[in-house]
């Protein structure tokens, strides 16, 4: 797996632990929600860098109170067709004000990058061999968006509203 973060291919310093694997304290760790719940206090004590992975059906509400102590929330796509994590990503950013990394893991395909980036994901575990160029091209394939989401794009209706002002300034 390769990691694209903020549009660049990045070395992934995080390790995703299976629930029964012993944790090494010096490696940034991503654990399942079940493990986080079961070992919460010990995990937070032992790991300065801790992340939680949510499966579809596990909403951000489950970790809402601990978000300021978590550096990564990984949202799993067991299949690209399961779109629940798009809502979870928006909720993390917009409802919970989460500023850490929201990472897409699992069945993450090129033609979903744009949707994911707009929904608040900033890190993507992608197929080995995927390039940053392809990632950027995919997220720029459609310049403007009709609706406001979590990214910085201004919706088309807002750009339209701004148009007369620009035209007036040009005159």
């Amino acid at each position, binding site marked *: 797996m390769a990691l694209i973060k903020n549009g660049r291919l990045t070395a992934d310093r995080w390790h995703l632990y299976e629930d029964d694997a012993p944790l090494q304290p010096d490696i940034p760790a991503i654990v399942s929600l079940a493990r986080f719940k079961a070992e919460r206090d010990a995990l937070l004590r032992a790991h300065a860098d801790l992340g939680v992975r949510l499966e579809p059906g596990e909403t951000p509400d489950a970790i809402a109170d601990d978000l300021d102590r978590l550096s990564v929330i990984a949202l799993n796509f067991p299949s690209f*067709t399961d*779109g*629940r994590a798009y809502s979870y990503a928006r909720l993390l950013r917009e409802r919970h004000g989460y500023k850490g990394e929201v990472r897409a893991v699992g069945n993450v*395909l090129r033609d979903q990058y744009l949707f994911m980036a*707009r929904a608040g994901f900033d890190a993507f575990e992608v197929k080995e061999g995927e390039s940053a160029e392809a990632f950027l091209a995919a997220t720029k*394939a459609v310049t403007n968006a*009709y*609706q406001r989401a979590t990214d910085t794009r201004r919706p*088309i*209706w807002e750009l339209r509203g701004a148009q007369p002002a620009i035209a007036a300034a040009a005159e």
Partner: protein
Amino acid sequence: MYRYDEFDATFVHERVEQFRDQVARRLSGELTEEEFKPLRLMNGLYLQLHAYMLRVAIPYGTLSGTQMRRLAHIARTYDKGFGHFTTRQNIQYNWPTLEDAPRILEELAEVEMHAIQTSGNCIRNTTADPYAGAIKDEVEDPRIASEVIRQWSSLHPEFSFLPRKFKIAVTGTTHDRAAVKVHDIGLVIKRNAAGEVGFEVLVGGGQGRTPMIAKTIRDFLPKQYLLSYLEAILRVYNMLGRRDNKYKARIKILVHETGIEELSRLVEAEWESLSRETTVDLPRAEYERIAAYFEPPDLAPAEASSAAFEAAQQEDRDFRHWVRTNVKEHKVDGYAVVDISLKPIGGVPGDATADQMDLVADLAERYSQDELRVTHGQNLVLAHVAKDDLHALFKELAGAGLATANSRLVSDIIACPGLDYCALANARSIPIAQDISRRFDSLDRQFDIGPLEIKISGCINACGHHHVGHIGILGVDRKGTEYYQLTLGGRADENAAIGKILGPAFDADGVVDAVETIVDTYLEERRGPDETFLDAVERLGFQPFKDRLYPQKQAAA
């Protein structure tokens, strides 16, 4: 009608280029069919029994002469010279090649059209009353809200991988011609006690293998909150809708299993939260910018009754019949709404040839403010025709086989493509529709029968809307033989109801006889010509029909 500005045009052109790249990756082998499938489906390209099928969006069923002419050109150039208008007011081409698909989409983009979200588990083409803007008692043209929804839902980053497809329909009058109660969301534009315009919001209607009538989730939503409220419903559905079984994934099942009260509570809470967090709703100026495109056309004043029109009806019997069935009252004196039937006797429901499309484009330009509608009943509409022009229009339509006088009569049948085209079908639909239509070819007999809607689906997915047919026909497969199950009493209007199964199924020959038996029973049992088929079924119940259809059972009992 709505016209693209530079933002709309750029958006659609970029989407074409994106798809061109995806097709190139497929053709080069970089993408497997499995990987390509979700991509092509996001652009309306299906792989059917014999070939690819491309479904082109006709937003809320409205298009210009230029756009219709382009659809004709595509039919002629990339298909076998015809297209098929669907129950979602779209058009399907049954024989395009994969290589041609990007070029077709480019040709569509040139006339402000696309195939975005005509398939896939996303928000599909929003449908609306085909008489929008032309009939009396309309609170607001439903196409305004439909266009607002079209833009908001296009490539929505959160709602492109829903549990299942999602269909929205809008009507601006209390008499519902948009079947809003069998949609995932139905919107009825209304005024509240204070005279403000808003929506009654219904949710959870649908057909398929578990047909359900939509329930009201909010009695009055002020107009300015349309998109934020839809966003709240969609978010709740996206997170809670079932994904374990595709047949239980539509929002109707969520409504059913959660209960409308609880779901309403969840949606209202979500709406309140998201309204604090973000701005989804359009500013008033943008709503009005879109609304301005749907201003009523500037129709020259005319007398309510036209002497030429009356005289032509006296002289031309066929014209008189056509006026009786296919011409409806317009809100402006001296004008009429015209149904163009795509149901010639023995024809394929909803099919039109390229030449017919070209002609209709011309007629729209000359007689109806350069605007056409596609109906969910698979017909076309010219919405603003001067009564003085009706006879000339009729003669031109008749010359092209487009003047069948059967709007809402027994031969005006909805049918899905069925086993002749569709990979999902269990049985053929089109030949059954053709046989029934031929059986009832006598116009006098059709007039005598009165309004009667027959709807035929070739499988349980119910694309032919059989659940809401006055007589519904469902094709099933039994050990390799096609059988047809009959339902009675369904309807898709403001009193929407799901039809109920009458009894054992019939084979392909028997089903046409059975329909005729049902009709004959109605004619014999009705109180008079004023008692419609549906009224008679309601009064009589199923027994008289069963007695006639299944006499051997009676004998055995």
